[in-house]
């Protein structure tokens, strides 16, 4: 196969590309330039698309003996990921930019260009597994190493995208193994720190970054009964489940810490309350997509057993889910067997059966059995 290896400059994508080469594929390395300001050097585990990352990717390709190119997707990245991230926060929701990047950049803009230029697949260093079912249809599964598993951020991929995706790190037992392999292969990125933060917020200060881009007006912090107990510099920079940075002078009556339960962007209000009210029993998802061919219960609208996960490294919880159709548009209703904490509109819920990713939806609203009103609703 002709394989385009997306090279971030990190150790995972370098080893993934190496394995693709070793498997006999005809591999070309491509580094995506995603930032308009690439002239910066990396500090620690933050930042990407720096000169250093580009050079690291280049050197990895040199060692693997494959051609290397830099492709500019900065315009698409800005529109589809960065601007979207700001707009979602401004609307009081909590988006996942890595997921958006996978959905629209790596496995859309890049994949499409690759296919048009004669490639068969895009290879990345994600920890996830694509297998084929008996009919040759792709299924997305968790990686062998659950601690590193990244199937959540790939949960948005559709049948067509999965057909052309290659994740050579699927069966790797651990990250340490990948580093050791990089070392063995003479890849200089073997000891490069992992990146954790959002790549386009170089200093990791998401709140400060958002405050520069979203109009902030002072507003009220309310308790669950609607009483004003403080003020905030702007509701948009808060996230459901957040505890720090509320700057409430007086402690709660029970003396326990308070958490953000709800953000009301229209009213510019933040509702806070005790931790137990963060527990969510049911959520409704929109913008539903299926990772490959949907299971039969999806088509028939029957409620099915699954596990639900709402953040990249959150624990999956047992759930029952069903699909409702309204005018040909699917909505997903997920009932959680055990309540889950810190669920915010805009987050993605990914459903699994065992290791298999079924699909995903964007959380539109969520309910706590302990609160009479919807705990969090779309603003």
């Amino acid at each position, binding site marked *: 196969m002709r394989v385009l290896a997306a090279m971030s400059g990190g150790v995972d994508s370098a080893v993934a590309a190496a394995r693709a080469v070793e498997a006999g594929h005809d591999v070309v390395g491509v580094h995506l330039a995603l930032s308009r300001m690439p002239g910066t050097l990396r500090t620690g585990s933050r930042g990407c698309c720096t000169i250093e990352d580009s050079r690291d990717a280049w050197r990895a390709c040199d060692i693997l003996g494959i*051609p290397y*190119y*830099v492709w500019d997707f900065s315009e698409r990245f800005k529109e589809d990921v960065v601007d979207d991230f700001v707009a*979602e926060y401004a609307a009081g*929701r909590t988006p996942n930019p890595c997921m958006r990047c996978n959905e629209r950049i790596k*496995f859309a*803009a890049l994949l*499409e*260009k690759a296919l048009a230029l004669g490639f068969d697949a895009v290879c990345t260093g994600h920890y996830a597994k694509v297998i084929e079912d008996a009919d040759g249809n792709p299924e997305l599964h968790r990686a062998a190493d659950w601690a590193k598993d990244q199937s959540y951020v790939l949960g948005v991929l559709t049948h067509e995208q999965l057909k052309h995706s290659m994740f050579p790190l699927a069966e790797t037992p651990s990250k340490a193994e990948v580093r050791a392999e990089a070392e063995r292969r003479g890849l200089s990125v073997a000891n490069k720190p992992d990146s954790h933060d959002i790549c386009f917020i170089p200093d990791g200060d998401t709140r400060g970054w958002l405050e520069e881009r979203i109009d902030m007006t002072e507003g009220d912090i309310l308790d669950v009964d609607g009483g004003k107990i403080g003020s905030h510099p702007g509701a948009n920079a808060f996230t459901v489940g957040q505890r720090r940075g509320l700057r409430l002078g007086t402690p709660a009556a029970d003396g326990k810490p308070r958490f953000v339960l709800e953000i009301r962007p229209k009213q510019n209000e933040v509702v806070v309350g005790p931790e137990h009210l963060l527990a969510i029993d049911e959520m409704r998802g929109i913008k539903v997509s299926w990772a490959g061919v949907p299971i039969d219960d999806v088509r028939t609208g029957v409620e099915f057993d699954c596990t639900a996960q709402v953040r990249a490294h959150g624990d999956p919880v047992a759930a029952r889910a069903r699909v409702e159709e309204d005018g040909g548009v699917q909505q997903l209703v997920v009932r959680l067997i055990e309540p889950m904490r810190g669920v915010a509109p805009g987050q993605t819920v990914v459903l699994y059966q065992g290791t298999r990713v079924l699909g995903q939806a*964007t959380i539109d609203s969520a309910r706590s059995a302990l609160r009479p009103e919807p705990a969090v609703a779309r603003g």
Partner: protein
Amino acid sequence: MYVDHAATTPISAPALAALTRELSRSGNPSSLHGSGRRARRSVEEARETIAAAAGAHASEVVFTSGGTEADNLAVKGLFWARRAADPSRTRILCSSVEHHAVQDTVEWLERHEGAEVVWLPVDTTGLVSLEALRAALAEAPDRTALVTVMWANNEVGTVQPVREITAEAARYGVPVHSDAVQAFGSLPLSFAGSGLATMAVSAHKIGGPVGVGALFVGRAVTLTPVQHGGGQERDIRSGTLDGAGIAAFAAAAGDAVAHLGDEAPRLAALRDRLVAGIRREVPEAVLRGVPHPAPEGARLPGNVHFTFPGCEGDSLLFLLDLAGIESSTGSACTAGVPRPSHVLLAMGLTEDEARGAQRFSLGHTSTVDDVDAVVGAIGAAYARARKAGMAGHASTIQTAGTGFS
């Protein structure tokens, strides 16, 4: 097939011989003993050869590490010296199609040294407007520190009317710098006859090694040094001279200029064959710069530059590279990211038009076979690159369609 000679051209046989000969010898040209005198002699002979090749006096040659350093030294050096003589002289008149070595230097002076920059417009062929130059000079001649216009453009090959430009500036006594990195060795040129104050050239564009170049500095011209140290090169450019590189540069320059009379028409014929061939294979492609057939001396003899509608230059480069053809999109940045070229935008192209740029540049090793190989590969590469089209702008792949907006 290498068609990127404007980026760098293979070292010529006389230059390689001079380089290896001098590398095996030791001696600092500034030392006063025998080895030093021998090294100095080699440098001075080279200086004379290069001066002769460019129609300059030997004392006007200031060796540098290359074209970029020469441009920096000229633009900053002239600006600082002219401003030191009269603090009101802070204007720089600069063409809008300069190489980054000049453009970024001018922008740096604007940001950090209070320079006031007038960007001189160009027409659709990339030719700088003499009318705009005249107007800009007349507007505030006393406050003008310098004019800088390249001799020939590195992307589209347009040759500028240097003599007319210096004549206009001379009426007000304003010095003119020209980046002649692409012109030197490709066009007959004379520093003495040009009326320029300073002129930058580079060795590796003409068959010499990378890492050596020169700034021609007129004898009456004062420059403030950028780099300080031992006072080599008329106290204008300190640093131990690269004797081997300089000897090789001279060998390459002597060779290039000696063969210019035969080589320029040979390359121009290959260039015209390539232009005709690409037009035949891809009728939609648009030749940029001086229209075909270019009058003699109006376009660099080795330069072919097309924009290919509906495709990205980097896709085309990638596909040609896979087919064994080494070309260029014409501009690049440090991370290797192709951006729409400021030269093409200055010529009035839209960003989308400019994205489809591809430069093919011929040089001393180019043959008919190279040209025919490009012509043979361009049709298929274009068809495919066009299919990849603006994939970076609009995707048709079925995605989950998340997000509320």
